């Protein structure tokens, strides 16, 4: 009796998920279909998902107009480096803010959280000034640093929240063994936070990958350092919009992110099963 009920419940769940997902991913499928349509076809058969012919001309045009050759690699380099730096800084900060009380913690936490509320729309100018003083404008390192310094207070909070809820018993054992502070972090805490590591990786990847204004301004004089997002914006001008190419460009450029996402799935599954000893 129980098993059959469970089977029915599972089938119903699948049905609901699939129904929702059809509507859910419709715009995405449209974008992929539009990549193969001609510009005129796009507006004539506006909602059709299947293009009349699978022409690759949009992809080719997007590739050359947006300088995919040069910029793709730049985007990968910048994104990967930024993610590494952000993971390092936010996990360490989140760890101490989440699990320890120390002098000055409250002030730091309050300042960090309060800063989130202030829209930093025009931080371009002061950031540019700063990098100029450091002689880091128009360099890849400068861009990576600026990207890493962005709004990742969010990730610190995520790590902090996660680390806070890890039971104390897990580190007591290590303290008895006289393990040092960083060792406890590296050997015990960090591996437990895999789900957050996964989340931060994917979110920061998306952010850096699509980041546009900062790379544009910081690489104004050196086009060879520009990222893909900057290149793709060339397709959306003031008077003429190359929708078909934008669709094609958008389709290509999200592939690396999706690959990262799929690769990260295992981080969401392992969890903390079996780590609590009686």
């Amino acid at each position: 009796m129980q098993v059959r009920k469970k089977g029915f419940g599972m089938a119903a769940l699948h049905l609901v998920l699939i129904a929702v997902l059809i509507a859910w991913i419709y715009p995405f499928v449209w974008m992929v279909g539009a990549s193969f349509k001609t510009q005129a076809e796009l507006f004539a058969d506006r909602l059709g998902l299947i293009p009349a012919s699978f022409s690759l001309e949009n992809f080719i045009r997007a590739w050359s107009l947006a300088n995919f050759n040069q910029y793709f690699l730049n985007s990968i380099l910048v994104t990967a480096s930024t993610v590494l730096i952000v993971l390092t800084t936010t996990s360490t900060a989140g760890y101490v803010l989440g699990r320890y009380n120390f002098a000055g913690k409250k002030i730091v936490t309050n300042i960090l959280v309060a800063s989130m509320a202030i829209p930093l729309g025009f931080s371009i100018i002061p950031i540019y000034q700063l990098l100029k003083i450091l002689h880091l404008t128009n360099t890849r390192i400068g861009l990576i640093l600026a990207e890493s310094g962005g709004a990742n207070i969010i990730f610190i909070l995520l790590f902090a929240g996660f680390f806070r809820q890890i039971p104390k018993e897990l580190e007591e054992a290590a303290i008895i063994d006289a393990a040092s502070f960083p060792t406890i972090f590296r050997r015990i805490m960090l591996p437990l936070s895999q789900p957050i590591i996964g989340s931060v990786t994917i979110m920061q990847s998306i952010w850096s990958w699509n980041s546009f204004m900062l790379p544009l301004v910081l690489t104004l004089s050196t086009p060879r350092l520009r990222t893909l997002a900057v290149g793709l914006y060339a397709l959306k001008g003031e008077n003429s919009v190359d929708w078909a190419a934008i669709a094609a460009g958008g389709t290509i450029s999200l592939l690396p992110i999706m690959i990262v996402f799929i690769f990260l799935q295992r981080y969401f599954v392992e969890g903390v099963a079996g780590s609590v000893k009686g």
Partner: protein
Amino acid sequence: MKKSALIVVFAMIASMALIAEGQKDSKKAAADPKKPIVLKVMDWSDSSKALRDAFNKEFEAKNPGIKIEYTCLTIDQFKNTVLSAVNLGDAPDLFPIPVGMDLNAVVKEGWFQPIDSLVPADFKDGFLPGTFADGINVIKGKLYAVPEIGTVPTTMVFYNKELFEKAGLDPNKPPKTFTELREYAKKITAAGKGKFYGIIEGGQQVNRWKSEAIDFANLGGAALPSGEPMSSPVSLITGKSAYNHPAMIETFNFFKALASDGSYHPSTFSIRAPEARALFGAGQAGFIIQGVWCVGAWAQSHPNLKLGVGPAPIPDSGRKGSIGINAATAWMGISSKSANPTAAAKYLQAMYSPEYGYQKANVDKGVFFSTVKGINDKYISNPNLKAYYELAMERARIAPNPKTAHPETAAFYADFKDVTPGIGDLLQGAVSGAIPDITAALNELAAKTDQAVEATIKKAKARNPEIALDDFIFKWNPMEDYK
């Protein structure tokens, strides 16, 4: 093992980033004596981008030793980046004056250098009369900037001949007045039965609503300056705000009537001009009020479109004025910090030279009308382009310009703060039904504008006592050119 694999991959990529950087820099250090001069050009002319890219290649071929690095942005992106670029020493060699900035202001900032010494003495002669005017692109005789295109009004009425026929209208007789346009739109909407509508607009674009409001009101005698940026926020004849001029009220009511008739395509307020253009091209609307660049765009994207060109409609109360234009505008100049001003000047000359193909190609493809002598007459091949030009210039007259007539007004433009929401916002609101009482809203805008002008003049007097409201008042009959 597997979980750290990702971290390892990321680390490898990161170190690649740093190493690759190092290598490139060391290559630069070994200075190459035969390095070509690199000219950095930046603007927002996306309509002509393809032709500009072709021109750049032509220029490089004819001038070995010079490489062109061209970046095309949107107006907003440009405003955001040019600040950092210029103020922190990273300016392109050639770039336009940002929209909204006054030539006097940018020259005072030291952004541009005079071009006269870099070009032959007869450079200016190659352009149409009126292209250069003091206060606009020339200061005290020194040339700083060249216009990109010939000034032509942007609010003529394109129509779809096929839809005219379907509605029982004569495809060779476009409407001439507000009432006629409204009637025709109604008929087309009725014939469309939901498949096509009378008129479409890029409803999200406030600047289009603004151009239409000002241009049509001007035909009724409002005497406001047309064009972007506006050379004056008030009427050129009275010096008082004309936002509540009877012709403006009539214009607003006209557009509102089009909306209440149901003639506007239902997507109007969800789209911008490029989408509206595409939908018109696809036959979903009978009318669209737009500029000349659309002709070339449709020729490419919708070659089967049976395009008709009609004049901007005249208010029912009669034509009492014209769309006031200035032939002189300020576009591209040479950065004062450019390392290669001579090469930059060469590039600038080439863009306007009949020996290169740039002007000819743009006119031929219907992207813009040229400011260079002799180009428009020779190379306009598309009959719709010709029609647009003639109709537009019939509606237009040369208007006075406070910047040219009174250099002391420079202080005004540096200080003036726009009243928001502006006339474009109000027209958008009126048509979308968000503003119930149009007259009251226009009266309010007019009053606020007058106040802002008065306050700014008072403040500017401290900098330059010569400035007065009189500087903005001219003896001009808007049915004629201003002499």
